[in-house]
C-alpha cells in the first residue's frame, strides 16, 4: 500500500498520472453551487441557527445547600436534561455552598419545572433555589470587534497574497474558496442544529486561517510551474496549473489526514462519549472546515485562477502555440509510434536542467 502510494506520488509528479481538476471545473462549480444552496436554504428551512447561551443570554438557577453537603455537578446536568432533553447546561460550583446552573432562555412553565426538578434532585427546599436570567457573555462589543478584525484581516491577506504572488487573481481565487468554506461550515451547523457557541466561533476563525494557509501552499507550486522560465511549449497554462495541483496532491492528502486525525478523535470522543459541549462544538467546525478547506483549494481556488487568467492575451497566445506544436508532433508520431515518449522526455529534460 505504501509502495503504491509512493509510486502514485511519482506518477503524479511526472504527469504520467493526472487528475483533470482544471478541465472539469464546471462539475466542481456545480457541486459547490449545490452545496452552497443547501448550506443557505437548509438552516433557513430548519428555522435558523441555534445560538448558545453565551450569545443569547439565558436562565440561571442558583441552588443553595446546607454547609457540608456534597455538591455533584452531574446531578444538575441530569435534572436539566430530564426537563429539557438535549440541553447543554453550564454548571459550576459557587462559593462554599452553592451550585449555579445556566441554561438557554426558558419559558415560564419550563422554568418552574426545572426549578422544582433542581430542588428535588439536591434534596433542598424550593425556596433555596433562586432563579434569574443572565445577559449574553459574548456581547455585541465582542462580535463587533471580531467582525472588524475579520474585515481588516481579509483585506490585508488579499493584499499580501496579491503582492507575494504578483497577481490579484490568485488573491481573488483564494478569497472565493475561503467564502465557500465558511458558508459550507456554517451551513453544516445550521443543518445539524449544533449550537453556535464561542468555541464554535473560535473554530470558524481557525478554519479561516487554515483555508488560506492550504491555498497558499498549493498556489506557491502553481506560481512556480507557471513562472516565465517554467511555462514551456509542452503545456498550456491550464495544464501547467493542473500539473501543479497534481504534484502537490500527495502533500494535500498527507496534510489533510495529519490535521484531521487529532480533530477526528476529539470530535468522536466529544460527540459520542461526552455528548454536547465545548469539545464537540469546536471539533465539528474544525473537522468540516479542514476537509472543505483542502477540497476547495483543489476544486475551487485553482480552477477559478485558471478561469480568471485564461482570457489574458499572453495566455491565449501561449496556449495557441502549445496546441500548434502538439498538433505538429501528433502528425509526426503517426509515422514513428513510440519514438518520442512525452513523459520520459519530461523527466529527462527536468533532470538535465537540475544537474546543470
Amino acid at each position, binding site marked *: 500500500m505504501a509502495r503504491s502510494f*509512493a*509510486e502514485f506520488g*511519482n506518477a503524479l509528479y511526472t504527469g504520467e498520472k*493526472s487528475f483533470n481538476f*482544471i*478541465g472539469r471545473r464546471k462539475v466542481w462549480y456545480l457541486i459547490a453551487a449545490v452545496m452552497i444552496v443547501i448550506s443557505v436554504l437548509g438552516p433557513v428551512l430548519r428555522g435558523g441557527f441555534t445560538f448558545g447561551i453565551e450569545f443569547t*443570554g439565558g436562565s440561571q438557577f442558583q441552588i443553595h445547600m446546607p454547609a457540608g453537603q456534597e455538591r455533584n455537578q452531574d446531578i444538575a446536568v441530569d435534572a436539566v436534561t430530564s426537563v429539557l432533553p438535549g440541553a447543554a447546561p*453550564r454548571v459550576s*460550583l*459557587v*462559593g*462554599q455552598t*452553592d451550585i449555579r446552573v445556566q441554561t438557554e432562555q426558558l419559558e415560564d412553565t419550563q422554568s418552574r419545572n426545572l426549578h422544582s426538578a433542581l430542588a428535588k434532585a439536591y434534596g433542598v427546599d424550593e425556596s433555596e433555589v433562586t432563579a434569574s436570567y443572565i*445577559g449574553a*457573555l459574548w*456581547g455585541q*462589543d*465582542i462580535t463587533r470587534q*471580531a467582525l472588524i*478584525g475579520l474585515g481588516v*484581516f481579509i483585506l*490585508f*491577506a488579499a493584499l499580501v497574497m496579491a503582492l*507575494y504572488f504578483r497577481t490579484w487573481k490568485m488573491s481573488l481565487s483564494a478569497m472565493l474558496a475561503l467564502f465557500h468554506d465558511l458558508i459550507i461550515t456554517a451551513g453544516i451547523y445550521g443543518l445539524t442544529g449544533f449550537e453556535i457557541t464561542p468555541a464554535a466561533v*473560535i473554530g470558524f*476563525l*481557525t478554519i479561516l486561517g487554515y483555508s*488560506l494557509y492550504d491555498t*497558499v*501552499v498549493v498556489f*506557491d*507550486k502553481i506560481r512556480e510551474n507557471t513562472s516565465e522560465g517554467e511555462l514551456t511549449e509542452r503545456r498550456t497554462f*491550464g495544464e501547467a496549473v493542473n500539473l501543479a495541483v497534481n504534484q502537490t496532491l*500527495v502533500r494535500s492528502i498527507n*496534510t489533510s489526514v*495529519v490535521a484531521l*486525525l*487529532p*480533530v*477526528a*478523535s*476529539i470530535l468522536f*470522543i466529544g460527540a459520542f462519549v461526552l455528548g454536547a459541549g*465545548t*469539545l464537540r462544538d469546536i471539533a465539528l467546525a474544525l473537522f468540516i472546515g479542514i476537509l472543505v478547506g483542502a477540497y476547495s483549494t483543489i476544486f475551487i481556488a485553482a480552477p477559478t485562477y*485558471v478561469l480568471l487568467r*485564461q482570457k489574458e492575451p499572453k495566455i491565449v497566445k501561449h496556449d*495557441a502555440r502549445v*496546441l500548434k506544436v502538439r*498538433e505538429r508532433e501528433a*502528425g509526426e*508520431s503517426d509515422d514513428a*509510434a*513510440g519514438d*518520442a515518449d512525452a513523459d*520520459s522526455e519530461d*523527466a*529527462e529534460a527536468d533532470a538535465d536542467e*537540475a*544537474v546543470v
Partner: protein
Amino acid sequence: MASPPAVKRARRSLIALLVIIVALIGVIGIGVVRGDATWTPKLALDLEGGTQIILAPQNTNGQAVTREQLQQAVAIIRQRVDASGVSEAEIGTQGTQNISVSIPEKADSATIDRIEASAKLDFRPVLVTGDGTSAMPPAEDADPNAPIDPSPLPTTAYDNAWLTDGLMAKFAAFTCTGDAVAGLSEAPEDRPLITCDSEAPIKYILGPVELGGDSITDAKAQLTQGQNGVTTGEWAVQMTLDANGTKVFGQISQRMFGATSPLDQFAFVLDGQVLQAPRMQAQILDGRPSITGNFTQDSAKVLADQLKFGALPIGFVVQSQEDISATLGSSQLQAGLLAGLIGLLLVVIYSLFQYRALGSLTIASLAIAAILTYLVLTFLSWRQGYRLSLAGVAGVIVAVGITADSFIVYFERIRDSLRDGLSLERSVERGWKQAIRTVLASDGINFLAAAILYILAVGSVRGFAFTLGITTIIDVLVVTLFTHPMMALLARTRFYSGGHRFSGLDPERLGAVYRGRAQFRAPVVASRGAAKKNLGAAKEAERRQTIAERKAAATAGAASTGKES
C-alpha cells in the same frame, strides 16, 4: 577533518534551538524559585474556575441605570480586564441591574480594584491638605451645627469661601480609613469633597468638579524626553483631552501655574479617592497634559489605564465575591487530552506508514514543537497572564496539522528533487530552498490573521489569536532550527543517502531517472512499454485541455488536416 559547511550550519541551528529551550527553562526556573511562576501553564475559567464578582452599578446622579449604560459598563469592564492580559474573563449582565464578572484563579486585590474601580473619574482643584492619619480634636468654640455649605454658594470651584467652619471641622475630624472613603464615589459633583489619597496618608479638601473624566480621549505611559529629544528615563502618563477638555484645562492651568501651594495642585479623583494630585508646572493649552513624578513603568501604566477607562459615569458596588468552579467538568479536559493523545498516536502511525524512517523525524519535530509550545505557554501565563482554555487546547491540537504540514511540504519537495535524479544531499538543499518559501508565505498569512485579530478583537477571540500567533512562530522555529538541520545531517548517513528501502527516500521507489553518484538506470516510464504509454500520455494531454481549448484545437485541426476527431 573539517566539517562541510552544510554540517556546520546544521550544528549551529541545533545549538541555537537548544539555547532557546534552555533559556526558557532557565527563566521559568528562576521565576519558580522566586515563587511567582509555575511549571505548568495556568488554566482558564472554563477549566479551572476562578472568582465570580457580582457588581451593582450605581448612577452618580441617583437615577436608575439604564440598559444601555449597563451594556456600556460591561464593555468598559471587559476592556479593563483585557488590558491586564489575555485571561479570557467572562463578563455579562445578570438580571436587570447587575454585572457578573468571572476571572480565572483567585482574584488579587489589584485586579479587583481595577474592575470595580469605578468608573467615575473627575478633576477637582485642591483647596486644603492635611495629615490623614490623625483627627484633630474639635476647637473649643466650634459650633457642631455650623452649616457646611457657604451662603451664597461661590461661583468658582477654587473659591476659599467654600471653606466654611462646618467644613473645616468635618475635615479636622476626618481620618483616612477604608470605611471613611468607601462611600465617596457617589459624592455630589457641585460640592467640595473631603477625601484621601489612594496611596499616601494625606487628606484633602477638594473643590467641586471642574472637568469630567469623559474629556480624556487617551492616556498612555511613556518615557519623558528632555529638550534634546533624548529620553530622561523617567516615566510619565501622557493624556490627550478632547476639544472642550482642552479649553477648560487650559484655563485651569493658567490659573494654577505659579499659585501658592496647595492651590497649584490638581486632583484626579477616581471612585471618590485621589489618584494623583500633581502640581501644575506649566500652562497647558494644547490639551496634552503629562503627569510626572516617581512613576515606575508599571505604576505609570496602571494610572494611564485608570484614566483611559475611567470615563464612565457609573459607580460600582461589589455585591458578592465568591469562588466559582470550572464550567466544564474535569471530564471534559481529560477527554480532550485523551482525544488529543489518540489523535497524535494516529499521526505517528500515519507518518511512519507514509514516510518510513523519515516519519521519525516528523515525530521528533512534533515533539520539539510540543516542548516549545508548552514552555512558551507556561512562560506567557506567568508574564502575560495568559490562560489556557479548552478552546485553546483544541487550537494547539489543530496546530499539529499546520506544523506537520511544513514537514510534509519539505519532504515532498525533497522527494520531487530525488525524482529529478539529484543526489540526496543536493535534493535536501534544493527541496529546502523551495519549501521554506512556501512555509514562510503560508505561515505569514496565518501570523497576519493572528496579529490583526489580537490587536482588534476583545475577549476570547483575542485569546485565540494569541494562541494562533504563538503556534505559528513555533512552527517556523521548529522547521528551520530542527527539521531542516536534522534532515541535512541525516542525509549524510549511509541509511538515507544509500536510499535504504525503509528510509522513505528510496530513489528507486520514487522513480528517479538516475540514482546516487552518477549511477544511471533506465527511465522508469520507458521500461513499461513506451508505445502504450505514449498513446496514454497523448490522450491524457488531450483530456487535460479545457473545453474551450479543445474546441479551439478542433477548429484548428478541421481547418488544416482534420486529424483530431
